[in-house]
């Protein structure tokens, strides 16, 4: 996949603003297909994660981003052309406020189809399984998307990552960033084990992210 001409510049700018220090624990960057999944506290999360991958990995890696935020104007142009983001609908925000339990609509499964299409057999994804941005202190319970992806693609490699301080650079509800130094830690890939239940797998995946916070 050919990278957009300004992708390198955008990536360098993102690394500069976020001052990101990248670490790969017992692993190294690798262009093979995988799903990178991390904690979510800022709109900059996927940009910084994407920018921190080496160019050869970055050009085959597509972030999954919320349609309602990234589908407008300049943001859309960046998301679609430069990041090659997979825009998915954050299903029914209004319903969420009314019912605590989301009804088992066809919506999430549509999103999974969409992601699998986008991956083809060579491309990787960046995914934030919490679904929505948190305050940066706690990692919320993971939504089931990660599990369904693995079910549909047996053997899919999942690479846990933790982003420190992004919530300080651009917290929820702020427009202008403050340039704190951030840190991004990658860990060796995990996979869905045969017969592993959905809650057990999601808890294990979440733990794989959380343990990177203070290492």
């Amino acid at each position, binding site marked *: 996949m050919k990278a957009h001409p300004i992708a390198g510049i955008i990536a360098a700018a993102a690394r500069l603003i976020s*001052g990101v*220090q990248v670490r790969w624990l017992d692993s190294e960057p690798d262009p093979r297909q995988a799903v990178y999944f991390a904690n979510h506290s800022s709109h900059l999360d996927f940009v910084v994660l994407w920018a921190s991958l080496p160019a050869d990995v970055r050009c085959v890696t597509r972030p999954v981003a919320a349609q309602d935020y990234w589908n407008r104007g300049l943001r859309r142009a960046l998301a679609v052309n430069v990041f090659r983001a997979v825009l998915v609908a954050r299903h029914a925000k209004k319903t969420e406020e009314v019912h605590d339990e989301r009804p088992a609509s066809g919506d999430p499964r549509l999103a999974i189809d969409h992601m699998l299409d986008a991956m083809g057999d060579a491309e990787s994804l960046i995914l934030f399984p919490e679904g929505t941005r948190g*305050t940066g202190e706690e990692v919320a319970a993971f939504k089931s998307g990660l599990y369904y992806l693995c079910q549909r693609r047996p053997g899919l490699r999942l690479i846990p990552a933790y982003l420190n*301080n992004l919530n*300080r650079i651009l*917290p929820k509800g*702020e427009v*202008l960033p*403050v*340039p*704190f*130094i951030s840190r991004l830690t990658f860990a060796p890939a995990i996979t869905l084990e045969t017969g592993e239940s959905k809650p057990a797998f999601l808890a294990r995946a979440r733990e794989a992210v959380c343990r990177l916070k203070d290492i």
Partner: protein
Amino acid sequence: MKNLDPQLLWALCGVLSLLAVSSLIGFAIKVTVKKPEAQATIRNLNARIAAWWVMCAIFGLTLVIGQVGSLILFGMMSLLALREYVTLLPTRRADHRTLFWSFFIFTPLQYFLIGIHWYGMFAILIPVYAFLFVPTRLAIAGDTESFLQRASTIQWGLMVCIYCLSYAPALLMLKIPGYAPDAKLLLYLVLVDQLSDVLQYVWGKLLGKHKIAPVVSPNKTWEGFIGGVLTATLIGTALWWMTPFRPWVAALVSLTITLMGFAGGLTMSAIKRDRGVKDYGTLIKGHGGILDRMDSMCFAAPIFFHIVRYFYVR
């Protein structure tokens, strides 16, 4: 390019030779000393020397460009230092906008004031206006948790990383009768201050036994302190010809620079120890962050500036 006078060139040549000699010594130590327990120190020493080449190249280049070059260099260093400082300290969500002001309004403004030579405003922008603005903005943000601690954390960051450091390029706005151009004065301050740091490190590694402040800064020893201060003062005295000072004044001024530099290193270390880290950052290989390199400068620059301004500017 008007700053390229012969004295400045001599001083820059001196720096270049010093770097060359250091690299040779670093190489000789690497080849001859094979003790396994010394290897980490030797690697760090050579990384430090390599980083010095880069730092001297950047600083030399900005000196040659002139005032704008120095303002951009020190302005960038202020931003990077403030970034290291606030990252290390606990800030809360409600501090966000105040921090934005600190980075993107007060810092550029402070350096802009130097650029237009408005001394009166340069000297009070942060100690008066920012000092009052910070707690006001925090109060408007409405979070009272550890209020005074948060306000003073930001005020202190602005004072040390922006205000104090900006005194170094501010030397360029001093007009001293019978002495020009003034880039030499900035080079003199940087040379004495940084050599004092380096020489304290060297004497400490060679002879260091008695710790001077084991809790705050475990690597600082009396031997390093006395040896470094004396030799740096000696070099500062020997360089009197590039300053407006007579030799004995140069000696006193260099002594002041080295002592203030020591105070800066010690104070900034106390913050690091309180936060449980060794370095402020990782930007300069072998040295740590910008703030690890500039801590002595933050304390030495304002005092040096005011000594020169009080006694030499008419």
